[in-house]
């Protein structure tokens, strides 16, 4: 593929960032991806299935990974962050800070190191629902397909059992942080989102009650590569729940938490009800909502889910979750605003439909960029800087990829018109 010598720097290696980089590179530009995790794929990699076709994200991801691998114009840095970007002569002199992975490119992902590693850490990829060793493979389809060492947990050279067992000399416990200089002609911010911290919602029992989980945890529970191998079960005792309550707008559209609507949580819950019924059609699902919000073509999901058996939709926000210790259940309370009666529904498990919080909400940005009150970035910042995907507004994967393609075009235009 030809290369016109112009570079687009993409901050964030999730579905949006990867798409922008690939589209720009395939149009003949150099693309540099800066990703803070140890792998590309971002939040989508953590999904079990995604809209609109309800297929596992790995099929879509794999195509993108292949396009990245096949394209010499794309360079990606994981465990990396954009430290600064200085405007100079119509382009940016960017500095990336790359944290040490402690595992070099010789790694074949054979897994011998993991077997001998004596320390464990909570697996943030599965939202702490299981553990990995201090040296671990980020997830099944991780790109780059290399192990990584968690600096905070690893005892370092005093242990070095992994170094001894690695026959490829892939482990370097003395690896140092690096800085990389990149000359960028345009920058695209694809910083994405974090799930809202459910522990901040003090009336919904996340934390005190083990069987109150969040929607993103539900994705991991349902995923074949998740902590339970794809079996949806209660964290407290590992039993399959006979009934599950879904609490919509958990910390969303709420001035005490996230003021905005994340626009995807209603759909995510429809999807989760489908997961439950794929596992066992007898599981009772109760969805408590303020309004059902399914944008555009997704409206059809409302009809199909509400017509499903063992599915009850109740208009009323859950504002209290208590444990019924004798029954080993949770009791969720809402007022059914249609009948005007309070509902005290006993269930085995509760899923909080938490929203998308802008990942860059409180970050000090290396480029000049305005934020909305909600923390999401405006579409464009200082010259040659654009935003794409959920960094701009909460939305679904399909919209992100379209928007990311548009962002690549905007970045290209700003270079061409210069």
């Amino acid at each position, binding site marked *: 593929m030809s290369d016109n010598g112009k570079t687009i720097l993409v901050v964030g290696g999730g579905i949006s960032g990867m798409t922008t980089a690939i589209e720009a590179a395939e149009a003949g530009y150099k693309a540099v991806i800066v990703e803070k995790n140890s792998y590309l794929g971002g939040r989508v990699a953590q999904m079990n299935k995604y809209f609109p076709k309800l297929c596992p994200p790995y099929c879509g991801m794999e195509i993108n990974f292949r396009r990245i691998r096949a394209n010499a114009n794309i360079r990606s840095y994981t465990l990396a962050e954009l430290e600064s970007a200085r405007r100079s002569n119509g382009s940016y002199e960017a500095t990336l800070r790359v944290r040490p992975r402690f595992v070099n490119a010789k790694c074949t992902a054979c897994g011998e190191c993991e077997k001998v590693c004596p320390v464990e850490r909570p697996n943030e990829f599965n939202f702490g629902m299981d553990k990995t060793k201090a040296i671990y493979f980020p997830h099944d389809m991780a790109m780059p397909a290399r192990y990584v060492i968690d600096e905070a947990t690893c005892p370092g050279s005093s242990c070095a059992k992994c170094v001894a067992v690695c026959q490829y000399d892939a482990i370097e416990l003395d690896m140092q942080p690096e800085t990389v200089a990149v000359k960028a002609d345009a920058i695209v911010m694809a910083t994405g989102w974090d799930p809202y911290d459910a522990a901040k919602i003090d009336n919904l029992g996340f934390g005190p009650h083990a069987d109150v989980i969040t929607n993103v945890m539900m994705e991991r529970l349902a995923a074949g590569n998740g902590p339970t191998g794809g079996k949806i079960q209660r964290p407290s005792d590992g039993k399959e729940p006979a009934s599950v309550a879904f609490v919509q707008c958990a910390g969303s559209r709420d001035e005490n938490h996230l003021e905005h609507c994340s626009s995807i949580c209603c759909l995510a819950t429809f999807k989760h009800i489908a997961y439950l019924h794929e596992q066992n059609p007898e599981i009772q699902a109760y969805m408590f909502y303020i309004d059902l919000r399914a944008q555009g073509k997704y409206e059809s999901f409302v009809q199909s889910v509400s017509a499903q058996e063992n599915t009850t939709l109740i208009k009323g*926000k*859950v504002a*209290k979750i208590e444990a019924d210790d004798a029954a080993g259940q949770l009791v969720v309370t809402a007022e059914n605003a249609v009948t005007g009666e*309070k509902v005290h529904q006993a269930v085995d498990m509760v899923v909080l439909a938490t929203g998308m919080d802008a990942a860059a909400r409180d970050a000090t940005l290396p480029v000049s960029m305005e934020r909305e009150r909600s923390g999401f970035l405006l579409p464009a910042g200082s010259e040659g800087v654009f935003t794409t995907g959920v960094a701009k507004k909460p939305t679904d994967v399909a919209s992100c990829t379209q928007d990311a393609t548009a962002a690549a075009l905007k970045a290209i235009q700003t270079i061409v018109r210069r």
Partner: protein
Amino acid sequence: MSERSLVKPDLNFIRELKTAGGDTLKQCYQCATCSVVCPQSPDDRPFPRKEMIWAGWGMKDKLVSDPDIWLCHHCGDCTSYCPRGAKPGEVLGAIRKGAIEHYAALPGLAKAVNDRSGLTKILAVPVVILLVGALITPALNRILPYHEGAYGAFMNTWFVDFTFISAALFAIWSAYKGVTNMWADMKANSPTQPTGNLTENVVAVVKDIVPHKKFKECDVNQERATAHMLTLYAFIGLAITTTIGFIIMYFTGEESVVGKMLFLMMKFIGNVSAVALLAGAGLLFINRKSKDEKSGLGSYFDWGFLWMVLLVGVTGFLAQMLRVAGADNHNPNILAKATYFVHLVTVFYLFAYAPYSKFAHLFYRTTGLVFGRMTSRQ
């Protein structure tokens, strides 16, 4: 809820609610968080979600006759958890003001009492009466009994009693009229009719009110219950004090043994109550002041009444102190007389306007709680 009804919005009522502290009511998006976090709300037709939509739609008739607005003790849990900043607690307070004004025997008087602009007029009534009283006191004191140790030389005691008994009778008539009208409307609009013996239910409700049983169920604002209880007990104590004073004045006299004992009792209860009133109202005042904007700041309806209660306490206490501290106990100086005069004016305000001011909650809340009890709503 499912029956069809045509909503006829009372836009004026919506405006009134908005100016009385319910300015946020249109923020509500009916999620019903409030009904769930409220520690007082029943399972059947809980509040305040339905009141919020009635208020938004201006359904005055439903709101003023709704017993649930009196089941609300203004804990503030709903307001602090409200995702929209709609402040249901404040809106219900504004609705209660609306109900007090709606059922007022003299609606114009209620408007004047609860609006800052009416203050001069409504204070002018006791000021004029009492000025006349002070003017004719020298003449009255020649023909009627008076009490030398209680500013009798300044304001004839019989005249004071006559004025205040008349004010009390006016208040009782007003309250009776308002309460009976509200009861009739509550019966007409309630899907369930009250059952059981009225007297027994009133006794049961009073038994709950005295220790503030319901009030103490509030999660937020526990200290408000204590402050309110102190104020209520102070008023009960002052009522007892007044009764004893009345007995001494007209029956026993101060010289007999019984009279002397009663006098000591009156002074003791009176002073303890005065301190309790100052402490209780003071705490309520501080509590209201320290509330942030998010939980609502109340309106003139709340503040005007609270100031008046505080003034009654302060002037009452000072009037006694200034008289005792003065050179001649039986001929108080001008400062003492002025303080006593202000005290009488403020007491008149509390007495005569009780069914019209925030004080009316004493009657209407009790009625609402009795109705709620007799329809199994609490």
